[in-house]
């Protein structure tokens, strides 16, 4: 819990004149559960996309497990797991097949593939449904399968973009229980974005509140609440203080329709 596994230095992404992520600097320790909070359009998804090497930064740098996201992208990809916001498993295959393809893509030794898949299915509580088509899975099961798929190769850091969007509270709890187990058993660092403040409060070691592409506040829940000064404060107050102000300013049509489509597919 000491060495930083993720180092972000002045990471910036522009789309034309619009600055989506503005000189973001952060450091996440190995084994930490780190939550990125922010309103729509704050730059959370853009940040994750850069860290998982899907989107090249306009300037700045970041390293994951010591590998640069710009010059050592393939090494980064081997070290990380990524669960995008939208549904990333294929509904026209079984749960087992979805895992098998990724076991092969990540070069798991042939002898170990079956054992790893079995273990991942068991770990995510999906053993009984491995042979069913994913199109028949519930939203929570789809998310758990995605997490199983993204952790088959035992990544050091697991990136999750809105992992519980569109799930009911029971499915959400189940997803979080399994994520917490991942950290306990394998020491996986979790880096995730969310809109749900109570999730951040319950599960994160530290939180960064992003606003207009920048880190507006950073710390443990308690540190953030204390930063507002005298009196009782909740994380909601923290969020309103740092990310509020300009009401409903962010997000684009594409982002919103994407998110709603995901919620609909999972829900």
């Amino acid at each position, binding site marked *: 819990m000491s060495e930083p596994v993720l180092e972000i230095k002045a990471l910036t992404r522009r789309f034309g004149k619009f600055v989506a992520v503005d000189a973001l600097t952060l450091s996440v320790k190995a084994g930490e559960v780190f939550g990125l909070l922010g309103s729509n359009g704050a730059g959370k998804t853009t940040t994750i*996309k850069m860290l*998982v*090497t*899907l*989107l090249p930064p306009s300037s700045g740098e970041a390293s994951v497990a010591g590998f640069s996201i710009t010059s050592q992208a*393939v090494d980064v*990809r*081997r070290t*990380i797991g*990524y669960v*995008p*916001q*939208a*549904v*990333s*498993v*294929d509904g*026209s*295959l079984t749960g087992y*097949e979805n895992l098998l*393809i*990724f076991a*092969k*893509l*990540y*070069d798991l030794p042939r002898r170990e593939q079956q054992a790893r898949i079995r273990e991942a299915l068991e770990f995510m509580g999906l053993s009984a449904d491995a042979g069913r*088509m994913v199109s028949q899975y519930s939203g929570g099961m789809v998310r758990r399968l*995605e997490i199983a*798929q*993204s952790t088959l190769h035992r990544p050091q850091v697991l990136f999750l973009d809105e992992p519980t969007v569109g799930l009911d509270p029971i499915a959400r709890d189940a997803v979080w229980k399994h994520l917490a187990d991942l950290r306990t058993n394998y020491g996986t660092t979790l880096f995730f974005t969310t809109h749900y403040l109570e999730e951040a409060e319950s599960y994160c070691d530290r939180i960064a509140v992003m606003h207009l592409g920048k880190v507006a506040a950073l710390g443990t829940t308690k540190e953030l609440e204390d930063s507002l000064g005298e009196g009782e404060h909740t994380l909601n107050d923290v969020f309103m203080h740092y990310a509020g102000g300009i009401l409903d300013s962010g997000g684009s049509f594409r982002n919103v329709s*994407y998110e709603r*489509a*995901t919620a609909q*597919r999972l829900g």
Partner: protein
Amino acid sequence: MTATLIHPLTGFIEKTFVITEFELRKLRHDFTELITRALQPALWLVIFGQVFSRNGAMHTGNIPYLDFIAPGILAQSVLFVAIFYGINVIWERDLGIVQRFLASPTPRAALVLGKGFSAGIRTLSQAVIVYVISLLLGVKLNWSPLALLNVLVIIVLGATLFSTFSLIVACIVKTRERFMGVGQVLTMPLFFASNAIYPIAIMPDWLKTIAHLNPLSYVVDALRAFMLAGGTSALGVGRDYAVILLTTAILVFIGARLYPHLAW
């Protein structure tokens, strides 16, 4: 030194086949697609082919028009299936599947080529139907194993070529609506500016030039050489293979460059 040279290549080939396997496993769960796709070539051969052969309007040299058109229709069905393949990529982008694959260490070119091969294997059902109908209509086919193998390789390569082209279009236009529009615009010119249903020799000069630049002409030409008993190539089989392979390689290279942009 040799080991370091060989490893990335075997890794690349292995990953290409994993992607092909991923696509083909979907087909195993739902093969209605294979049956519906077989209908179109059947219609072209039975209706268009029969009418034009009766009319005798086409000068196709020593071979009957139906024999002439059978390889053309096979190539056409390969083209029609492959050219709309990119729509799947847009669909996978609207889900998070493209993003998920791109965040894995799989080489980009293997992602593109693997998808292309799967499109190629999907066209095999059409080859079967074209052969069956051709047989029923009395087309003289070449049944030698070597000729059949060549036909197989050519249609898989042809489908890989055009599906990769389709993937490139998908990477550029990015939405289903625009893609369908562009696909419609491209299909007919590619088909009519080729030797699929009439010989290049009877075309006006400007169209001859286009037909020679059109990869479909080389697919058709090679199929005509291998599919028919006593079939001959007008352009040269070696040249057909060279053009098809080189074009595919260039398209895969471009596709691998553009594919990551889908995740932006």
